[in-house]
């Protein structure tokens, strides 16, 4: 039976999971959730994710939420097929993947997501972008990317010389960030730029990137 993923093809957290599913070559069905009518905040959906957020994965009677828990599950369940995203046969490399997944989840995400929200998502919801929030987070993001620049001058990918879930998790927000006026934060750092061009050209991402637009027509 195929996996069911509840979410939307332009949502950052849904695309984090979609990328993983494509890397593993796993069959799945994408079930749209109508955010505009508030479907995600109402009882049938809340029984799947009490926090009322997409995505949700159903695998038979198992229901999971939080995109990074879902990708960890998919990468583990299908570890013998598709791309090896978690280095399950090498405990040291597996540990380094976990380190850089936490870096993305905490250091990187906390700086980049307010920028994407304020500049792209908020205006679609009728909110004016708060430039002070953007500026503060651009500074934070710059410092994080300085560390990435050093790391990526030593290893080809974040956890080592191998592509992993740690790199994949960066895809959705970085994709949207590169459409903002501040893409130079990536482009001015040669190793970060090369890493981004490498990972964003992967076939798994090419399958989902076409739908990654909020229709703002810019």
């Amino acid at each position, binding site marked *: 039976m195929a996996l069911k993923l509840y979410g939307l093809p332009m949502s950052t957290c849904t695309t984090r999971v979609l990328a993983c599913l494509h890397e593993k070559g796993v069959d799945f069905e994408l079930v749209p959730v109508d955010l505009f009518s508030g479907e995600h905040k109402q009882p049938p959906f809340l029984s799947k994710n*009490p*926090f009322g957020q997409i995505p949700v994965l159903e695998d038979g009677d*198992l229901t*999971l*939420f*939080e995109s*990074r*828990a879902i990708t*960890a*599950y998919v990468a*583990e*369940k299908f570890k013998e097929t598709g791309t090896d995203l978690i280095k399950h046969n090498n*405990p*040291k490399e*597996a*540990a*380094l993947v*976990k*380190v850089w*997944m*936490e*870096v993305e*989840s*905490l*250091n990187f995400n*906390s700086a980049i997501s307010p920028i994407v929200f304020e500049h792209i998502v908020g205006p679609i919801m009728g909110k004016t972008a708060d430039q002070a929030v953007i500026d503060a987070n651009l500074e934070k993001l710059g410092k*994080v990317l300085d*560390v990435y620049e*050093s*790391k990526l001058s030593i290893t080809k990918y974040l956890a080592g010389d191998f592509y992993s879930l740690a790199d994949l998790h960066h895809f959705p927000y970085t994709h949207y960030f590169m459409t903002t006026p501040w893409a130079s934060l990536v482009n001015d750092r040669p190793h970060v730029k090369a890493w981004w061009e490498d990972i964003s050209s992967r076939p798994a991402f090419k399958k989902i990137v076409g739908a990654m637009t909020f229709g703002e027509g810019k």
Partner: protein
Amino acid sequence: MAAIKVHGNPLSTASMRVLATVYEKEIDHEFVFVDMRAGEHKKEHFLSFNPFGQVPALEDGDLKLFESRAINKYIACEYAVKGTQLIYQDSKKMAITSVWMEVEAQQYDPAASKLGWELAIKPLLGMSTDTAVVEENEAKLAKVLDVYESRLAQSKYLGGDCFTLADLHHLPTLHYLFGTQVKKHFDSRPHVSAWVADITARPAWLKVLALLSQQ
């Protein structure tokens, strides 16, 4: 066998998170004190362990790790046979535990750590509390705890029937919050309150608190 070294500071919530795991797993270890007041965590030697200049860091032989939750996941897997089981071997149970580990990091900790900083740490440093930040984050925390209350009404621990990292990861911020006005949000929710009482009474956690009280 090379000993595990934990580089950290007992006052740091993230260091406490790793120490709790090391005690639960009953692993021989050396605790290497990082003098944050002297800025040791921002100097070259420590930066070679964690380029972000944050405690804690772990050395296990030639492996160097940082990020407390990654360190804990590594310890729980690598030392699975020792001490308390902190993760599940069953893949479905582990998946559910992963979900609630993410909940702690993404939904609970942002509000909890801001409140801990404003209400517990800033006063110790002679800084004034930002009441707007407190109000905003108390409201956020209350909503998260409503979800926890429902979850813990169906499940003894967040990940399932057993205590796991999904519960343990909350201990350090709980410790700071319980000395503040935020305690009432936990006390007023019976299942949350019972869960807190249970996990904070664990011997391994009491050892962490004993270390902290020596500072």
